[in-house]
């Protein structure tokens, strides 16, 4: 019974390698389907479309790690982008700040309701989604009436290119994504997020203020969604009320494919990034393949299922569970 020294970093997860393999295979398959795919332009395109999803899924990962979920991310992204668009006249910086403030408020409300008043996360965020839909619909006719064109800076950020295959939004992602990875692995808050998801009661007894951590998580999630919404709006140039609706399910799927447990306590952002990349490449593949919508949906579902299964298989082989 020799005491092994505690390691700083977890072993490189074999299941992550499998995800990388799956991603590579998908990219190759795309290359076979369409030669245009293996180009710098396409790399840039892939990054461009993945970044917002990866950001929203990052927030989703945080919530899921605590054992929660945020079904209001799509509407949060939309609301933040809408406000930024409508307030473009206030000046770019202020408009962006106002958009982020929307995210902050939504996150706070979600977080306080879930952490302090113990409303079920699924219900709370579903309700929040309905509330935002209602408010935005009314708002678009009244207090949020106006042109919804994004400021030039935001357009550049959402769709512009720094150099070669590197879009500006990648910079945003590197910054926030890096912060997420670092935050989850190397900060006290990150540890506490895992702790809460792993065993809420134990965390509490160990002196962790569970509620504050949870509020922080939902605020971070909403802020990430707000940033993503603003980027999506920037890419499209203008904003509408359904802006980010299609990002909800993929945000959950990316996290789960990337190995984050829906029950909380295990997973991480690296996996989610791979999950998001896989989903975008898959999406591109299905867009480029000229197949029937019916076939497309069946394919999409099947592939997501198979991916999740492969992931589980490999992570089990590692731990030797039955």
């Amino acid at each position, binding site marked *: 019974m020799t005491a092994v020294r505690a390691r700083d970093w977890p072993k490189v997860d074999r299941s992550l390698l499998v995800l990388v393999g799956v991603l590579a295979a998908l990219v190759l398959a795309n290359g076979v389907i369409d030669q245009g795919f293996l180009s710098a332009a396409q790399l840039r395109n892939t990054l461009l479309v993945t970044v917002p999803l990866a950001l929203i899924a990052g927030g989703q990962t945080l919530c899921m790690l605590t054992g929660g979920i945020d*079904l209001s991310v799509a509407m949060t992204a939309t609301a933040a982008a809408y406000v930024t668009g409508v307030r473009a006249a206030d000046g770019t910086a202020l408009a962006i700040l106002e958009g982020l403030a929307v995210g902050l408020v939504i996150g706070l409300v979600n977080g306080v*309701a879930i952490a302090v*008043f*113990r*409303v*079920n996360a*699924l*219900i*709370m965020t*579903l*309700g*929040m*989604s*309905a*509330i*935002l*839909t*209602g*408010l935005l*619909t*009314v708002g678009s*006719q009244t207090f949020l009436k106006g042109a919804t064109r994004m400021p030039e800076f935001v357009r550049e950020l959402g769709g512009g290119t720094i150099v070669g295959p590197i879009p500006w939004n990648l910079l945003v992602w590197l910054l926030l994504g890096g912060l997420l990875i670092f935050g989850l692995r190397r900060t006290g808050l990150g540890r506490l997020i895992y702790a809460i998801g792993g065993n809420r009661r134990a965390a509490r007894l160990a002196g962790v203020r569970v509620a504050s951590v949870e509020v922080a998580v939902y605020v971070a999630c909403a802020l990430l969604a707000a940033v993503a919404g603003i980027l999506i709006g920037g890419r499209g140039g203008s904003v509408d009320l359904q802006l980010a609706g299609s990002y909800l*399910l993929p945000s*959950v*799927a990316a996290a*789960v*494919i990337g190995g984050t*447990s*829906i*029950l909380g306590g295990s997973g991480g952002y690296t996996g989610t990034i791979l999950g998001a990349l896989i989903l975008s490449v898959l999406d591109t593949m299905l867009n480029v393949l000229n197949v*029937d*919508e*019916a*076939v*497309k*949906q*069946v*394919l*999409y*579902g*099947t592939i*997501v*299922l198979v991916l*999740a*299964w492969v992931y*589980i298989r490999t992570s*089990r082989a590692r731990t030797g569970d039955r």
Partner: protein
Amino acid sequence: MQATTMAATGSMARRQAWTGATLLAFLLLVAVKAQSGGFDSFEIQTMVTSTLALGYLTLAQGVIVIGGGIDLSVGAQMVLFNCLSARLMEGRSFGTCLLIAAGATLAGALLGALTGLVIARSGVPDIIVTLATGFVWSGLALFVLPTPGGGTALEFQTLVLGSGTEFWPPLVGLAVPGLIIWYVLRRTSAGLGIYALGSDRQAAFLAGVPALRAQVTAYAIGGLLCALGGLAATAFTGGGDPRATAGMTATLTSVAAVVLGGIALTGGVGGLLGPVVAVWSLYLIPAIMLARGVDPAYGEAVKGVVIVLVVLIGGLLRRNGRKT
């Protein structure tokens, strides 16, 4: 001995308290509705028939959640069976329609069983399997019926929905399967196994519950109910509609109704009456707002607030109940 009996009665009361609260909330809503816009048999018929499909989906979701799972594909399954039955029933006689309905129900159970099997065998979490199968079922629905259409026999519609302003047939149509499944859940060992599985998977296994069988059973019941939901939609609208959005909305509503009706999302707890009543309550909220002339855009927001508040208050009551 006296004390333990009292404790047990207390805990029984607590277990039924949620269903009671849901019922009370529902009756309150009915009263408000009756006051602001009338609640005659025409209204009741509207309520019961238009929520029939959703009612089945909620029962399906309820059984699955009690068994410790969650099914994000119930809406898609409903859409699939709606399209399938509408396509097959178009222009057929009443008898043939009944046969098709029976076949669809069976197919639904099989589809559900398959889902359960995949979940149990693959070890992939329920939520992701059903997210994926949801896409598959929506795709199949489009394949079966590329555009809205299809049809059904008038007698079939009358059988399911009743004629005139009757509202008993759909009520019976919901209650009979509901009661049968309630009996299966509460009074048979298979049903007990489902509760056990949802309560604590590991302990259930140690207690000798055949986990695979319980899980497959729960999903099979769910699939069967989703097929009934699809058939109800066919009867109600007289045709099929392959658009996936309706399915997703229905799925989310079923989850909300299950929680509002007192089933814990962690599994193992709750009954079936609460969720059905919750579906009706969710129907009444916009109806009341319509009658009161509330801007429907706010209506959506109000509905969100109401759902959150109900769960909040319910949670507080539950917590206080536990302390004493």
